């Protein structure tokens, strides 16, 4: 509890670091901040070419199906892979200044999250233009779904960033894990394509309900199942609590190990 209070006192630091990250990211490039919107659109184009021309998945409006799942996934995957190195990247700060170190993964994940929110502007526009009529209940659920995903991503980033300080291979291992995770989640294909006998194993993936909930709102135009959402909120909270506990233990020797 003390920890949370301390982090709250440093809220301006989170804000500053997020702002610095977002402002600094596209500095010097011609499109500048527009890349936040252009990048997901171009990714969508590539995936769409592959999956609707070469490997047909047999889903109506596949580009939208893909897009709605891909944007949240890109955020999640950045939080896993980039999150693992965010502490190492800020080692000068950690070795020289005292502040709650949780700030670093929090600001990293938050800045990725803000990126996702901006991309969602594009997602919603594409979705409406494609003829999807989201329900009011669905739209109200959207912030909850995002929050759940944020919490999960934060929990994982807290754990991976602190472990990577002691075990540098984790950075590379997590890059592979993120790739495998993408294919273990119904993003590029519908769940129906998964063979029945693996389905129970497949459903253990905590990201699947999140992706499904996004699709409910922005692809199917319906309100997501509340029961699933509540379970997802619980999973998200557990991940963060676990992350904070593990991070709190491991951060004690950061300054020595870096």
């Amino acid at each position, binding site marked *: 509890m003390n920890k949370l209070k301390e982090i709250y006192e440093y809220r301006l630091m989170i804000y*500053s670091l997020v702002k*610095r990250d977002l402002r600094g990211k596209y500095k*010097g490039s011609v499109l500048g901040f527009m890349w936040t919107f252009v990048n997901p659109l171009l990714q969508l184009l590539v995936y769409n070419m592959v999956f609707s021309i070469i490997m047909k998945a047999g889903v109506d409006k596949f580009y939208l199906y893909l897009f709605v799942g891909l944007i949240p996934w890109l955020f999640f995957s950045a939080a896993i892979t980039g999150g693992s190195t965010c502490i190492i990247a800020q080692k000068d700060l950690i070795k020289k*200044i005292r502040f709650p170190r949780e700030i670093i993964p929090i600001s990293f994940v938050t800045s990725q999250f803000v990126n996702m929110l901006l991309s969602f502007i594009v997602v919603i526009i594409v979705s409406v233009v494609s003829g999807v009529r989201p329900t009011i209940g669905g739209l109200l659920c959207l912030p909850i779904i995002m929050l759940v995903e944020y919490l999960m991503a934060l929990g994982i980033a807290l754990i991976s960033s602190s472990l990577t300080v002691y075990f540098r291979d984790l950075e590379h291992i997590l890059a592979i894990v993120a790739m495998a995770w993408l294919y273990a989640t119904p993003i590029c294909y519908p769940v129906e394509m998964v063979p029945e006998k693996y389905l129970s194993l497949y459903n253990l993936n905590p990201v699947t309900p999140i992706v499904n909930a996004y699709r409910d709102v922005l692809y199917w135009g319906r309100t997501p199942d509340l029961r699933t959402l509540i379970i997802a909120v619980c999973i998200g909270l557990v991940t963060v609590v676990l992350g904070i506990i593990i991070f709190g233990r491991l951060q004690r020797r950061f300054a020595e190990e870096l």
Partner: protein
Amino acid sequence: MEDNVAIRVSNLTKKFKVYYDKGRSLKEVILFRNRNKHEVRTVLNDVSFDIKKGEAVGLIGHNGCGKSTLLKLISGILYPDGGSVDIKGRVSSLLELGAGFHPDMSGRENIYINASIFGLTREEIEARLQTIIDFSELAGFIDNPVRTYSSGMYMRLAFSVAINVDAEVLLIDEILAVGDANFQAKCFSKLQEIKEKGTTIVIVSHSLSQIENICDRSIWINDGVIRADGTPLAVHSEYLEFMNEQRKAAGGKDLDIPPEYVAYMQERRYKENLKLSMIPEQQAAVEANGGQYRWGSGEVKITSITASGPDGVGKRLFEVGTDVYFKVHYHVEKPIKDAVFGIGFFRNSGENLYGTNTRIDGKPNFDIDEDGEFTIIMRKIPLMPDQYTVSFSIEYGDGVPVDYWKDALKIDTYRQTPDVGGFFMEHDWEYEVKGQDNG
């Protein structure tokens, strides 16, 4: 913890693993298990002390003695293996200047980032913003990107933020060498100001004189334990003594004293004397009267003595071979006739090195009717680097002392060349080098 204690360090122990050849990757860990040999080094061993509110404390010691580790433990960057550190109030650590600066952002934006890392809220930063900008002297550049700054400007901005955090406890690690001499002086007086406001300050520095200027207390850390704790002058002389012994033991040479050490010692003695000379004159005189070092019939009294170079600016430290001016003021209680002025030089051990007076020098004796002064100029003083006591006297022509002040003044001498002995002797060399082609 009592109210007047700002920092309590109790039984603090810190150990570091020192790896001979650390493998961090999976392959290295599995394949070269035995390579991961390490020794555990105890950097701090059961250290305890209290620092009172408003105290300014210097941590000294040779490289690797644990003083920086101690500072990091106090600041909370490192965690102890045993014992604890308790601090009251907000801590600001000036261990790293310009933390989080982004080169593409303006000076103003970077103030926000940097100050937020010190834990300030937006309102707190806004309240300090003008002070920070004014202090950095960068008003004209504050909205330019930091990458366009010179390194001096960069450091000035960074220091201005750090020094204006207004913490109750300020921790500083070797960073007072910021910017040009002017800005340094400004930082220094700002530190004094902060200290006067009652901020507790802990400084790690190699510059003992810096610590003496700011701190009221020095803690000498040696091999992870406190070796001495007391006033800077007392602790530092012990420390220097020790370091000198170490050097001698290591080099086996008596004269292996680095010049900065000599210079420091001289500066320090000079300061000690300044402190002595700051005792009010009246008090000094009374003390001397009561003791055994001043005597005489008392019709005329020496009231003050100023030592200076030709420029007349009072000082106590002189280079060997330069002229020293002593100006002596006296006060007349009762006029005297047939008087003689005298001067004498003594080693601190008491050995008389030189003495003379106006009678010996064949000057006529004179009558003293009212308050006045006399000046004696010692040309090209030959006294080699050390501290000397100078005595002054007013006597009757027959040698009866009116005011004989034996330990009136102490002066120090220094020399830039390493020749040795008690006195400088003027000399020349004449020789021809044979068998060498000088063409």
